[in-house]
Every structure is written in structure tokens, then in C-alpha cells.
């Protein structure tokens, strides 16, 4: 009875380790001003070099693990965003980059803007800033992935419980 459990734990540990260390990223602009987009691009370049964390910018949603979304969601981009999210395979994570992606930012109330990314698809992490610095983007992605580690996840549990209790 014990044997398979050890095996499963090892395999799960291996999987988590691989996921944390090999996040392939897909970038989608749902109507942003480009500010965040160029900062995302800048994270690939020599000064920041995301590849040292194993981050690789992928072109196909099928290959990606993390969706980096920038900008408020425009009516036109909404469907595309949903489709790309659906095309991605599990496990998948969404990161909203920049103030507009979080809430709609300065574009709140524009007739063609639906609001932040989380109005359309579930979001796992938010990175604030207009635009966030490349360091902040890397930090956000790393924090998101670190939260997958069992130790971190367990450490957060009591806090979540407390918050839940507080809400109730």
C-alpha cells in the first residue's frame, strides 16, 4: 500500500519541479497601449534575460503554460482572448500585466472596453504598474510559479483559512 504512494509523491514532486522551472509563456495584447508589451519583450533581452529562469516565449497557445495578458479587454479582442485561453492545455495560468489589465485602468468607461482581464477569463496573478518594470514582471511570474510549490502552498493555507473566516 505504501509503495505506490511514495512513487506518486515522487512523480508529483517531479512534475511540480518541472512546471516551476519551465514556464513557457504566451503573450496576448487585448487592447493595451504597447507599454506593457515592450516591457514584456524587454524581459527577454540581455539585461533581464528571462531564459535563465526557463521562461521561453512561445507562439502557439498549445505550447504555452502561462498567458501574459496586457491591456483592458476590448470588445473585439474579447472573443480571441477566450479562444486562446481555451486552446491552452492544462495546467494553465493567466497573469494580468499592468493597471489596464487589472481594472481597465485609464480606459475605464470607454465604450469599447469591457474592463480588466478578469472580466473575461480567470486570472491567477496581477502585476501592477503602468507599465510594470521588467523586474516586476519577472517577479510576478516567479511568484506565481513559486506558489505551486507544496511548501509555499501549505504555508499559505492557514492564512487563506483565516481570511475565509474573517469574511464569514
Amino acid at each position: 500500500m505504501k509503495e505506490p504512494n511514495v512513487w506518486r509523491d515522487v512523480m508529483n514532486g517531479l512534475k511540480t519541479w518541472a512546471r516551476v522551472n519551465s514556464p513557457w509563456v504566451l503573450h496576448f495584447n487585448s487592447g493595451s497601449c504597447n507599454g506593457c508589451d515592450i516591457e514584456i519583450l524587454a524581459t527577454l533581452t540581455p539585461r533581464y534575460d528571462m531564459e535563465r529562469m526557463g521562461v521561453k516565449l512561445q507562439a502557439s497557445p498549445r505550447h504555452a503554460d502561462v498567458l501574459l495578458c496586457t491591456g483592458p479587454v476590448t470588445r473585439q479582442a474579447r472573443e480571441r482572448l477566450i479562444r486562446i485561453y481555451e486552446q491552452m492545455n492544462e495546467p494553465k495560468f493567466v497573469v494580468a500585466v499592468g493597471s489596464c489589465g487589472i481594472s481597465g485602468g485609464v480606459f475605464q468607461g470607454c465604450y469599447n472596453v469591457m474592463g480588466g482581464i478578469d472580466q473575461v477569463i480567470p486570472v491567477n496573478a496581477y502585476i501592477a504598474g503602468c507599465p510594470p518594470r521588467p523586474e516586476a514582471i519577472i517577479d510576478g511570474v516567479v511568484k506565481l510559479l513559486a506558489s505551486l510549490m507544496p511548501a509555499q502552498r501549505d504555508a499559505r493555507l492557514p492564512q487563506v483559512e483565516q481570511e475565509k473566516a474573517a469574511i464569514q
Partner: protein
Amino acid sequence: MNNEEILTLAEQIVKSWDWKTEVSRSQPNQLDVNILNLEQFVPIVVGLRVKRLGYLSAIVGLDLGREANQLEVLYYFCEQSSMIVLHLRIPRQNARIPSLCEVIPSAEVFERELREMFGIEITGLKTIEYLYLPEDWPDGVFPMRKDADLTMVTAQTGKV
């Protein structure tokens, strides 16, 4: 040609023939031409083009409000630092102006925008699908008009 010469020449052109125009100079480097007869609009543009006076820099649509009950379209022809502005005024209902595509191919972009945003029909414009508003945009809502009802976003997201 310096700026003054350009503007003087343009003024001569729009005043020639029997074109019904009002000409004024609101800025030192700007010539405002009010075109009173819509049918003469395209010939006037051709006249300016023949002399190579400026390229079409932008078309600006204006909603003059409900009291005036008029829309205004401004055509900015620019050369060096001088600007020749053609003004067209049309009623808000059944607004319709002729297309410039035959004379200036690059006008198409601006005219499409005008059509979508202000609901001004452009006679002679070939492509008329929505190309910049979303596919599910309601008919008859022209966002840049002052009285446009744009509550659907609020209705959809429940947010302002």
C-alpha cells in the same frame, strides 16, 4: 513655393470658376474654405490636386450638436507648414457626402472611419463593412455623435 504663395494660389483656385465658397484665414498658416455646394466638392479637390497643393493629412468629423442639427467634416490638406482646410456642413439626418477615393486613394481609410463613427454615408465608397467597430456592434449607433447611446458596455460588465 513658400507658405504664403501656397495659400494665395489655393485661394485663387477655390475662388475661380463659379464655385460657391467662402474663404477665410483663421490662422496665419491656415486657409479655411467653406464649401457651400456639395456637388462642387470633388472638383475643388481635383483642382487643388492638379496644382499639387498639399496631401490629405486627415479628415475630421464634428458633431455640431442637436441645436445646430448639423455635422461638419474638415479635410486637412497640408503642405510644408501651411494647411488648407475644406469645410463641409451637412444635416444630421441622412448625412451623405461624396467619396474622395477616386482622386486620393488614401482617403479610404479616413472615410471609413467617418462612416462608422458619425454615420455619414459616403457615396462611392466601396468597402462598407464594419472594419474597426466590433462585429456585434448595434446598428444605428454612431459612437462619436454627441447623442450616441453607449450604455451597452455598462450593461454588459456591470461596471462603469
